[in-house]
């Protein structure tokens, strides 16, 4: 064999192999980057960060759930009952506003933007960085750069874990139920005893981080861009009902008033938009829920039943935040006074 033949054969073999794999990945497109499933295949949705971009770009829907673990336990059909219309779940565990903007950017570019987007509103708006995501984002899936799609089309891991897996699941007809996708709640790992045991154990290990940095202004700036440009979309935020045990640490480190001030900023920001509604509950029933650790898996993660309860309240319009500052200030006072005056010792009895 001469050198010329060697080079031509090598490059032909290599390009053919890449072409075959690339074509299969493009046709099956398990991450939905280019199209909805072809060949009558049912979508196999198993990875939020890798598949949210494609779903946001190519699926048909009216409503979207965005958020983190505090939104993952929503059953999609329950949300559809409230907002009427096909809903997709684009949550991501451990995500915060910066992560959400990747999805919002794609939603904003859609020809038919969503009618409603449901978000959880939690302390991550305040104390989580606007510059750094907690988990690595596969950014190449969220941008419009076709060159970096090579990372998707020529990738053993994605080919095996998604393309092959989509084909296999469809052949065996073992399609994961999308209605309960990413619901993590496990009844066995919850309840007061479970929460307290893990709380005590984590306190023994963890060094208490006294120094807090707030990023509220920066995070709200990230959101404002999309709230303003997606004026026909209703942004629905609900205040995640963390347990009082979560707030205990903030009270003890002397930061409660600071957090209240930051929530004032958030409410003030949100009140100025007509396409934003916030649900914030300070009634006795909700305060009772956050004071009962049996409703939780840990200090902040509530049971699946609480997600259902949240939707029920949203559906009935209970707890919608008034636009007038004096009114929502009163509600904030009620909530934070409750946290300030709560007898935290009873949690350990």
């Amino acid at each position, binding site marked *: 064999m*001469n050198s010329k033949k060697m080079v031509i054969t090598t490059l032909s073999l290599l390009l053919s192999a890449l072409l075959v794999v690339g074509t299969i990945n493009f046709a099956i497109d398990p991450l939905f980057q280019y199209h909805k499933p072809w060949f009558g295949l049912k979508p196999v949705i198993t990875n939020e960060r890798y598949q949210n971009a494609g779903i946001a770009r190519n699926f048909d829907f009216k409503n979207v759930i965005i958020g983190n673990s505090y939104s993952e336990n929503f059953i999609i059909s329950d949300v559809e009952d409230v907002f009427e219309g096909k809903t997709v779940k684009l949550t991501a565990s451990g995500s915060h506003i910066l992560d959400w903007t990747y999805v919002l950017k794609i939603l904003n570019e859609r020809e038919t933007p969503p009618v409603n987007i449901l978000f959880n509103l939690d302390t991550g708006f305040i104390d989580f960085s606007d510059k750094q995501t907690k988990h690595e984002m596969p950014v190449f899936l969220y941008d419009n750069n076709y060159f970096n799609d090579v990372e998707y089309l020529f990738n053993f891991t994605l080919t095996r874990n998604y393309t*092959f897996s989509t084909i296999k699941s469809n052949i065996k007809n073992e399609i994961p139920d999308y209605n309960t996708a990413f619901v993590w709640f496990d009844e066995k790992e919850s309840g007061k005893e479970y929460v307290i045991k893990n709380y005590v154990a984590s306190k023994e290990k963890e060094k208490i981080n006294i120094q807090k940095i707030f990023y509220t202004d920066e995070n709200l700036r990230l959101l404002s861009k999309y709230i303003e440009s997606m004026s026909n979309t209703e942004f629905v935020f609900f205040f995640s009902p963390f347990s009082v045990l979560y707030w205990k640490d903030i009270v003890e480190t002397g930061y409660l008033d600071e957090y209240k001030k930051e929530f004032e900023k958030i409410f003030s920001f949100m009140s100025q938009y007509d396409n934003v509604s916030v649900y914030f509950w300070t009634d006795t029933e909700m305060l009772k829920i956050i004071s009962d650790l049996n409703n939780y898996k840990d200090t902040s993660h509530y049971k699946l039943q609480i997600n259902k309860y949240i939707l029920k309240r949203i559906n009935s319009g209970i707890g919608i935040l008034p636009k007038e500052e004096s009114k929502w200030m009163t509600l904030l006072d009620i909530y934070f006074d409750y946290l300030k005056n709560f007898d935290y010792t009873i949690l350990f009895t």
Partner: protein
Amino acid sequence: MLFNSYIFVFLFFPIVILGYFLLNRFKKFEFAKIFLTVASLYFYGYFNWAYLIIIVSSIIVNYIFSGILLSHKASYVFKQLIFIVAMCLNIGSLGIFKYYDFFIENFNTIFSTSLPLLNLLLPLGISFFTFQQLSYIIDSYKGDVSKYSFFDYALFVTYFPQLIAGPIVTHDEMVPQFADLSKKKFNIDNFSAGLYGFALGLGKKVIIADTLGLVVDSAFTDVTNLGTTNALLIMFAYTFQIYFDFSGYSDMAMGIGKMMNIDIIQNFNSPYKAIGIVDFWKRWHITLTRFFTRYIYIPLGGNRKGEFRTYINITIVYLVSGIWHGANWTFILWGILHGFASITTRLIDKKFGLFSQNKSKSLKAILWVLTFAFLNLTWVMFRADSIEQAFTFYKQLFSFNFIEINTEYLELMQIDGLKILADMIPFVGDYIKTYAYIIIFLSAFILSVFAKNVSFRIKSFQAKWYHPIVTAGILFWCIMSFAGESSFLYWNF
């Protein structure tokens, strides 16, 4: 930019090789050099554009210095002054970027002070391009070089295949090649040999080194409970990782150079075949050894000033080698251990002729085992984050606690390429997955101890029927694995 990246394989290299040969085809030789220099700077700056300021200013300043040193008009005293300034600037900048914080940390510990650290980002490959330029400055001072044009010099320093992790090439072996008109024309024989070499180097890096790297990194996060079995596994894993990573990079550099008709010097000559530490250093990172021999060992007197001074000089060279590898006591201790082993080897050899004289096969085997064991043990020191961690590792290794292999390590070695292969092969597929670690270790062992090295394969390349299958197969496997995590070990040295 990484060699093992989509952008390099699909975009950068095809454009560069096409542009380079096209410009030469139209006899725009000077433009071709400028094009290659700019492309190399892009390659370098792709990591971090701020690095460009450092390398470009370093090239300009050193070129001016060498110009003065080679000038007939400058007085001897002035040249001496310039030489001292050039040495101080080069070694000083390396010192500040690489060693300042280490020095201050130790100073603070010893004298209980709290002097601030600089926390500077270490420019990639600074040790390599500084050494290349130092050699040119020293040779200019000696008057051993002819004056090069600025772009000849800039290309010698920045030529992208060897810029980040060597080999440490010298001006006299690179600049004449860039000027050689016979090398300006695309040569299919060189291209095929280079392509084959590049594929083999890439495979060494991506398939073997990166896989073992996952296991090693995982183990070194906590070495306290390894037990003898896991410690042995991790020790071997790192021994092969560092070799396949570093030599794989050098092989890729050689392959890329060859495709462009540029011969880049061999940097590894099957070092794990070495019998004795002296032999090992003739085979491992050959261009670094050459640099130290030429610019430290010989100026110190080499072996010309008696036996005792020879050993002192050897110790100094190994100490500097240790420091060169990184700002940590682990590297210094590793250098000292190798220096000690080198001197011991020489003493034994002098007395008994054990290493240099004809040896029986069994004696060779024993010496090989001892050398390989020493290398393995000292690589632990090299890899450890601190001396304490290294000793904790040694304690585990010699605890004779033969616990089961950590399943996490075995799973990490079940790479997706092997899994896909296993999925496609009926009946034996499960065995491939289960015994993936044996396949990887055995391949690494055979390739490093018994097989011909890539450098030899490039030099003696003659296309055979199986070359396209091997080359395309490895390239395909590697391209499909690029999206995994990867980092070259030698970047920071």
